[in-house]
């Protein structure tokens, strides 16, 4: 048995030597050049990644009541990504009518735009209605869509910033894009602020707490 292995090993060495001789004889570069070079390809893969911060839950102010018809609130998400082609940030509601009373059976209708789906200035909701909508601002939120402003409005009076353009959440509970960029963010990320507004006009919202659960999704492009 040992003899057999020795034979195999010897035959292998002889074969390899033989092949090496053939190679040297037919390979001009190695055997004839004074300078020999060779390129090495080094590959580094940078995986596309993306993160989104945990937005703060908020309570809109002031409370709406019989003598207070408007309320606003804001939150924000910071998105970080190294995606070479950037990212998008979209929001959606969890119920067809976003702002629902927790126990009173009432709700604030989704804000109705003059042109459906196109954000417009919050000019006040129609008489006999009460509505809830949102707007956005930040480096990657297009001002042409959402308006050019940097605060949501007056938290004491509930009056929205007059330059902000609002729209309603969708009954289908589908994503609405609020920000995007075609390039990576900085390491610190890019913050997009969302403004919420609610108003009753010549109608009383039933007393109680109302909540809307909003989900933002950042997607690498």
């Amino acid at each position, binding site marked *: 048995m040992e003899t057999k292995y020795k034979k195999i090993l010897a035959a292998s060495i002889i074969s390899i030597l033989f092949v090496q001789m053939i190679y040297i004889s037919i390979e001009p570069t190695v055997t004839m050049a004074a300078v020999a070079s060779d390129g090495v390809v080094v590959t580094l893969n940078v*995986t*596309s*990644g*993306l*993160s*989104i*911060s*945990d*937005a*703060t*839950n*908020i*309570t*809109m102010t002031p*409370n*709406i*009541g*019989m*003598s*207070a018809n408007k*309320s606003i*609130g804001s*939150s924000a*998400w910071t*998105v*970080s990504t190294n995606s070479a082609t950037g990212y998008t940030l979209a929001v959606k509601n*969890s119920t067809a009518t976003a*702002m629902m*009373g927790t*126990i*009173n*059976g*009432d709700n*604030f209708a989704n804000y109705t735009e003059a042109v459906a789906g196109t954000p417009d200035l919050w000019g006040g909701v129609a008489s*006999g209605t009460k509505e*809830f909508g949102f707007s956005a601002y930040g480096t990657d939120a297009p001002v042409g869509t959402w308006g050019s402003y940097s605060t949501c409005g007056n938290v004491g009076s509930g009056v929205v910033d007059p330059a902000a353009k609002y729209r309603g959440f969708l009954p289908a509970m589908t994503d609405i894009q609020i920000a995007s960029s075609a390039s990576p963010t900085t390491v610190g990320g890019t913050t997009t602020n969302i403004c*919420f507004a*609610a108003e009753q006009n*010549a*109608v*009383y*919202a*039933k*007393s*109680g*707490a*109302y*909540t*809307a*659960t*909003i*989900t*933002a*999704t*950042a*997607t*690498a492009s």
Partner: protein
Amino acid sequence: MKIISMKKIISISVICLFLLQMLYFVVEPTISVAATAPDSMVVTLNVDAGISISDGAAVTMAPNLSTGISGSIGSSSWLVKTNNYTGYKLDVKASASPALVSGGNSFADYTETSVGTPETWSVAATNKEFGYSAFGNDTVTGTWGTTATCGAGGVPNASMKYVGFKITDKTIATTGVATPYAGTTTSICFAAEQNTTYAPAGVYTATITATATTL
């Protein structure tokens, strides 16, 4: 022997791969490498309960009582607005007992057959009494009657049910829901009568306080 070895190799390989996968989940920051990353937040809007009541108009009952006129009626009303989702109640009470007085003279508070239960207006002979009834969307017709007017010519509407005032609250209207934005009006009817007796001449007044309360 060979089959057993292969089985061992496969088993160990699967276990190793599983452990590696678990390790990956533990050490890998899920958010940072995800192609999409969601975050949910809750927006809360509080609507405070409120209630308002209008200023009920002072009323002079008509006609004046005299030796030839024995009955007089009057009315006023309150408009209540509330967004309280469990509704409200509207109570009335008199500031004095008896309610309708003029110096040392007075009309007795209306006496019901069953104390405290409104009934069709009726004053016994030799008595002079003052009472009230109510009507409106939030007034219980079974208690107060089914009419929408206080009467005419000093005669209370026969469909109304009257009760005497007390200096403690009595509910004349209530509902378990918020009012419309415009509010809900409740009317109060006053009635006074002298029956085979003369009320001494004078100006008699009663101060009635209505209180709207959220439920």
